[in-house]
């Protein structure tokens, strides 16, 4: 018997309520103090196609999905055929008894739980769409979990839809639960038990980014829908009246970034969000924000390219794009959160950096982090304090003559010039996309050009001094050092546990600030490590290239994956062990 360690999966056609059912399962687990991590797979279409959601549950904090499924709800036969090889010994399949399953197709040690969904639905008199609730209830019975918690979650989730809907959903789940209890022995090997500990939030990276933005005082969000950034737009729009935020679904991404710039120029904390294709359209605006020295935050949530690529899958293929987008040289801070918590805190930090250094800041995420749910403790909302940077003071303004523009782009030691915003008397200036002098007048003189380029560049030097250096996690005398950025953090942490269990000493350096890059620290770590690998979700090893560019050093091995799927801890374990053993 295995208690409180299992992976639950549900699969079927798009539009069958798979994600909603999975969320009820996840919430039912976390309400009793268990930890969850989920991963969804879905094609870019609305009805039909194959969708699935996998929820891993344990009684310790977990950081990623793992291989091996213990219980699967197959809402159609295709789900069984596609996922049967993922099932561990003793796993169970819950499926519609009207499907004809050839026992030869299924391994002997897999248990079958056929359920007459249609009969049950007819008997209790609910709509056909409730099939997934029947199946959910059945899975709860199988793992012997407390149905009362599920009932409560259903009630909370459908509160707004009224008693009739709550009642139908609950009865459907209960009927599935009873069917298993009445027709099968209670001998399923995998069980869940309540821990009695308090519940936690279940959040995606995108949820955390939005909470971070709202907590940081973001008042303006403009975006055009694009997976996997669309849920940021939905979240912000849903909260716009509660927190007084203006959210604009624009005509395109060009408009979105230019609107963010307009809001930033006016003195409002502003953000936009997109994926690679949308960011292609934003690149000119990105440079404009750099030139005008207007603070904005850009969420760039990666998916596999090139072009439309694989819209609903994951990749880390835009690292170099983010670092180099738009013409010319200007400060381009790029922050890369590795998990849900960092998505919250780094988004707030992005707003501070944007305003302190008056420049656009990119937060680089990916589908895997953006859309996977993780149990998360409530955030410390006071940890990152708001820093709005330098505004012109009364003396600055008084000293400004009435006949000229304010020196908005004054040459300063750290490159940051005191800001003014429309409405401030004597702070008047025109921000120019052309090269300009301290007052914003268009200038093409040699000395102005050189001084102004250097002024903007100094901001990056000042920022580099302020940022935290990455920390090496794990033993200092490790056999091997993993270097990575972004959402690979979860599976790497899980892989480290597996490696330690096998006696492999491993440590991990997470790059959080891709720019300004912590060159010295990374060079030092590579210099003193026995062996180094990068783990990246892209084809070429972009992070390894950046490391080479910034430090002159090569890593020993690039562990790469570019099939649209995130790394599983087991894959990293195998690849790292191979490097340790065979070099």
């Amino acid at each position, binding site marked *: 018997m295995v208690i409180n360690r299992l992976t639950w999966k549900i699969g079927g056609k798009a539009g069958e309520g798979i994600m909603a059912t999975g969320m009820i399962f996840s919430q039912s687990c*976390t309400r009793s103090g268990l930890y969850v991590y989920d991963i969804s797979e879905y094609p870019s279409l609305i009805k039909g196609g194959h969708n699935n959601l996998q929820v891993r549950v344990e009684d310790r904090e977990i950081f990623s999905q793992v291989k091996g499924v213990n219980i699967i709800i197959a809402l159609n036969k295709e789900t069984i055929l596609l996922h049967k090889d993922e099932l561990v010994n003793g796993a169970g399949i819950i499926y519609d008894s009207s499907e004809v399953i050839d026992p030869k197709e299924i391994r002997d040690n897999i248990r079958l739980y056929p359920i007459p969904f249609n009969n049950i639905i007819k008997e209790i008199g609910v709509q056909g769409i409730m099939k997934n609730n029947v199946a959910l209830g059945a899975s709860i019975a199988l793992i012997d979990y407390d149905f009362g918690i599920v009932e409560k979650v259903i009630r909370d989730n459908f509160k707004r839809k009224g008693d009739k809907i709550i009642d139908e959903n609950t009865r459907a789940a209960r009927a599935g639960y009873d069917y298993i209890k009445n027709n099968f022995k209670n001998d399923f090997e995998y069980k869940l038990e309540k821990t009695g500990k308090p*519940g936690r*939030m*279940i959040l995606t990276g995108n949820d955390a980014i939005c*909470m971070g933005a*709202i*907590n940081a*005082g973001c*008042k*303006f969000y*403009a975006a055009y829908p694009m997976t996997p950034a669309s849920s940021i737009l939905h979240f912000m729009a849903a*909260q*716009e*009246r*509660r*927190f*007084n*935020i*203006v959210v*604009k679904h*624009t*005509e*395109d991404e*060009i*408009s979105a970034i*230019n*609107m963010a*710039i*307009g*809001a930033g120029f*006016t*003195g*409002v904390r*502003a953000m936009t969000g997109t994926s690679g294709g949308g960011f292609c359209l934003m690149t*000119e*605006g990105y440079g*404009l924000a750099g030139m*005008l020295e207007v603070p904005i935050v850009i969420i760039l949530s990666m998916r596999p390219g090139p072009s439309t690529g694989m819209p609903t899958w994951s990749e880390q293929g835009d690292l170099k794009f983010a670092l180099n987008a738009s013409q010319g040289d200007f400060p381009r801070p790029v922050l890369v959160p590795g998990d849900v918590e960092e998505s919250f805190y780094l988004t707030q930090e992005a707003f501070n950096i944007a305003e302190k250094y008056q420049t656009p800041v990119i937060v680089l995420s990916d589908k895997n982090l953006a859309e996977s749910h993780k149990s998360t403790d*409530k*955030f410390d909302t006071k940890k990152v304090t708001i820093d709005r940077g330098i505004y012109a003071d009364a003396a600055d303004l008084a000293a400004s003559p*009435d*006949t*000229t*523009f304010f020196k908005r782009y004054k040459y300063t030691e750290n490159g940051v010039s005191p800001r003014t*915003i*429309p*409405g*401030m*008397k*004597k702070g*008047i*200036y*025109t*921000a*120019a*996309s*052309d090269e300009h002098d301290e007052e*914003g*007048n*268009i200038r093409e003189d040699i000395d102005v050009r050189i001084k102004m380029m250097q002024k903007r560049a100094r901001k990056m030097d000042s920022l580099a001094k302020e940022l935290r250096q990455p920390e090496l996690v794990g033993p200092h005398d490790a056999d091997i050092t993993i270097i990575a950025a972004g959402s690979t953090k979860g599976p790497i942490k899980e892989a480290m546990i597996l490696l330690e269990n096998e006696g492999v000493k491993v440590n991990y350096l997470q790059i959080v600030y891709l720019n300004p890059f912590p060159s010295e620290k990374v060079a030092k770590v590579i210099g003193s490590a026995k062996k180094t690998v990068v783990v990246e979700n892209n084809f070429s090893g972009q992070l390894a290239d950046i490391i080479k560019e910034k430090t002159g050093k090569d890593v020993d091995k690039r562990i790469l994956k570019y099939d649209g799927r995130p790394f599983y801890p087991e894959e990293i374990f195998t690849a790292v062990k191979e490097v340790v053993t065979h070099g």
Partner: protein
Amino acid sequence: MVKMTDLNVIERPNWCPGCANFGILIALKGAIVELNIEPENVAMISGIGCSGKLPHWIRTYGLHGIHGRSLPVATAIKLSNNGLAVFTVGGDGDGYGIGMCHFIHTMRRNLDMTYIVHNNMIYGLTTGQTSPTSEKGVRTKSTPSGVIEVPVNPIALAISSGATFVARSFGGDVKHLQKTIVAAVKHRCLSFVDVFQPCVSFNNINTYDWYKQRVYDLQDAGHDTTDKIKAFTKSQEWGEHIPIGIFYEVLSPTYEDELPQIKDTPLVKQPIDKIDISGLMDDFV
């Protein structure tokens, strides 16, 4: 009271001598003075082109952005501080070519701001290529055998896109232009003014004289500005007689009016240091 000199800057505009942009700049300043809007409460937004440089030569807040993208910038400025008087100026290439998508959406969005297009029917700053408003057959550097397409009709397009104030004026008649801009700003909705702007360097067809012989004022002709169909009919007049003045003017709730978030306090004045997300976090447990 705001004076013309309050809006002056030391630097002189570097437009070609005789350019109608000078007339537009004078009319714009005159309108701001007439309406007594404090310069610090004006945001003058532009894109790229000869007209795009205008914000550098009037002492108000300005943002001289990238080609064709001035309207989204202006929109967000208005949404961020709805106490500001927001103007967007730009050329026919900027607004009807590269920025056409934003033009249509801004018309239907109906924020309380003013969009003035310096329409010279040619690309001036890039030294004389065809523009979206160049007439069919016109030979330019990029169309040596003559333009093949028919021109964009900005007036008809604005009306059909849902604009609530649609006017045309002429850079050679500063008095008419100032009067039109004043009416545009007073209109408590999105106002669009297309301005005939003779380009003395690259357009030797649509000259000052060419316009003077053809334009007549709709308001002198007793045009009913509240009738959308009549406005559309007038927008089709071209040739020997070309109407200027207000084609269409109706009031409807602005985009800002529909946002309770900024009903009492502009976004920029809302404090951000005491935002409490604890309830939001509870929603996710």
